[in-house]
């Protein structure tokens, strides 16, 4: 780096809030990045925070995402300064340093999308985690008025044409993410919504209809459309709003059509006998070679801070008479806490001779009854076993500790020895 360039960066840095006590040599980690004419660029933002002598160390939430790529650009994780920076306008300015990287926009937004997607996919039954994510993201930050200044590219930033473009781009995206709903966020999240809805067997009502239709990979037709065997219709499903629309006739005509219809009857009878509130469906799958059965029951009681979901699916293969599937239970309790029951049970059964539809319902009924009994037993076993072994309800003496005499406990018996680990 030439002295002039050095000076330029330093003064630019100071103008935008860098401490005058900092020496570029120490505060800027000058990497020689190829692809930019060998110019040195400060790219280690946490370093800038770290050496600042007149402030508390920052939360180094910004780290380069890896070495510079072939075209010489660095991608950054988002970063921030700690509260100590909040009253200091110079440091607020530092907030956006990582946006020098033109791909920062994409990187950060896609990493935000990945995070929020993981939240969406991990949402408990009956709760839209996106609601909280959105509120979290939409908080205005106090230093917002300063942001537009950063949008003005200066000569020091014009090292490469894309940099100034980026600065503007990033600021726009940042402001949007901070101040108002970003239409792209919802758009970018649609894969997560789809995954969640299909995995969780989310139900919807068809316009004008009263019965529940299930969203699943088995009922997917592609391009956002799903079908329902019972009503012989297909529909468009909006994964972010959960609404079904554009219903069309979808008549099942293939080889499995009659098995699907009779299975809907037999499984329906079983479901009504054991589920107070459940939706079920049967679908021809894998090029009309197999039949999938889906059952989903939800019970939401948000006023009492708990929600639950039971979902099961089975795939019947007529060529082998095998029935394979799984049962998953998800219970969430969140009154002054957060407790989650998550279970996963694989089912393998074989449908014996006779009418397949009867056999399918019979096997499902047997497997689910046995599973619920096993699960209930496991609650008792965990409670009596592992839970008890972790902490006793009372000491062996069945008496609470006499705290005034607690020092003498030690004299009487070498009780404390247990904490010296082997």
């Amino acid at each position, binding site marked *: 780096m030439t002295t002039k360039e050095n000076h330029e960066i330093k003064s630019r840095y100071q103008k935008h809030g860098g401490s005058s006590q900092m020496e570029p040599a120490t505060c800027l980690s000058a990497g020689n990045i190829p692809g930019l004419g060998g110019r040195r660029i400060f790219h280690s933002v946490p370093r800038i925070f*770290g050496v600042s002598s007149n402030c*508390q*160390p920052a*939360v180094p939430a910004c780290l380069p995402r890896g070495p510079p790529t072939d075209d010489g650009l660095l991608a950054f*994780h*988002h*970063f*921030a300064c700690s509260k100590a920076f909040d009253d200091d306008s110079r440091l607020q300015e530092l907030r956006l340093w990582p946006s020098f990287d033109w791909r920062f926009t994409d990187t950060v937004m896609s990493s935000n999308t990945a*995070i929020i997607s993981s*939240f969406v996919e*991990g949402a408990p039954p009956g709760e839209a985690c996106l609601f909280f*994510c959105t*509120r*979290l*993201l939409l*908080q205005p930050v106090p230093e917002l008025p300063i942001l537009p200044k950063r949008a003005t590219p200066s000569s020091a930033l014009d090292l490469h044409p894309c940099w100034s473009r980026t600065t503007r781009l990033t600021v726009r995206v940042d402001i949007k993410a901070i101040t108002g709903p970003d239409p792209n966020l919802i758009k970018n999240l649609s894969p997560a919504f789809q995954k969640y809805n299909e995995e969780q067997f989310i139900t919807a009502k068809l316009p004008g209809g009263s019965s529940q239709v299930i969203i699943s990979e088995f009922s997917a037709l592609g391009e956002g459309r799903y079908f329902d065997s019972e009503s012989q219709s297909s529909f468009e499903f909006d994964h972010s709003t959960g609404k079904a629309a554009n219903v069309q006739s979808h008549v099942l005509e293939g080889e499995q059509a009659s098995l699907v219809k009779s299975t809907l009857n037999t499984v329906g009878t079983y479901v*009504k*006998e*054991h*589920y107070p509130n459940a939706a079920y469906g049967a679908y021809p799958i894998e090029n009309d070679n197999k039949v999938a059965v889906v059952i989903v029951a939800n019970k939401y009681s948000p006023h009492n801070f*708990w929600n*639950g979901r*039971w979902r099961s699916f089975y795939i019947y293969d007529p060529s082998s008479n095998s029935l394979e599937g799984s*049962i998953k*239970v998800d*219970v969430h*309790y*969140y009154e*002054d*806490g*957060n*407790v*989650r*029951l*998550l*279970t996963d049970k694989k089912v393998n059964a074989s449908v014996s001779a006779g009418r397949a539809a009867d056999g399918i319902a019979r096997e499902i009924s047997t497997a689910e009854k046995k*599973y619920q009994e096993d699960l*209930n037993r*496991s*609650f008792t*076993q*965990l*409670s009596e*076993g592992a*839970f008890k*072994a*972790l*902490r*006793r309800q*009372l000491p062996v003496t069945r008496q609470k*500790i006499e*705290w*005034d005499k*607690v*020092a003498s406990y030690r004299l009487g018996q070498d*009780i404390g020895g*247990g*904490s*010296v*680990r082997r």
Partner: protein
Amino acid sequence: MASQDPFDCALDLLRRLNPKHTGDHLSNIISLHPDLAEELLSSVDQPLTVQRCKQTGRDYLLCDYNRDGDSYRSPWSNQFDPPLDEAGAGGVGAGGSNEGAGEGAVPGERVRKMEIKANEAFDVYRELYYEGGVSSVYFWNLDDGFAGVVLLKKASPQGDATTSGVWDSIHVFEASERGRTSNYRLTSTVILTLATKGASLGEVDLSGNMTRQVEQDLPVDSDESHIANIGRLVEDMELKMRNLLQEVYFGKAKDVVGDLRSIGSLSQGQKDRETQRELIGSMRR
């Protein structure tokens, strides 16, 4: 409920995401909203880490209250590991903050004496209730008294391939001394993870955390009585929370599963109820 405070939003979110992975969710939220880092990290409880004291060979628990920079203080030896460098190695973090953990990291002489006694007392408590595990107590000075945290951790023995469990208790209290009485405010969190699996059962995971608070004025005639008061408060709280956890983890979870699916036939149940109603009706007549 519809709070707009980002901190509350983050807590709302954390109450909904799988409690088994709170640490991951926490770092994700922080990268979405970095301003919240400090506040969230100091108020969201995570499972405790165990470290061996180099001086005494005894295990102790790590938390924000015995931390100074990257070092943690052992309650048994009162030494930091790695030792604190007077020069402030790295130049970041050392000597900067005088709030919270910075000042609290080393209690004054009187409070340290109480801390030693409290560690001995809760070591007894740990043995009697947990029959194993690790305990640590850290105290720090306050303007009108002192504060502390009582930590307990127990994991079910490894090697059991089918069932595992971990219990973490975090009891943070403040004692405000008012002459002959002291006001204690206790916030307790228990983090409990249980998992079991088997061929016919599949996988079952019950994970979570619960937090409860209590405030009480109790008489104090010596520093020993502080330890006894805190001991009773923590003991009562843990008993209460253990019962609550038992109810929620096993009772509530089972009930909800039963609400989702009925083992018995619903129509038969309906018939039985009708028969009963008719019977009661006929008896009234």
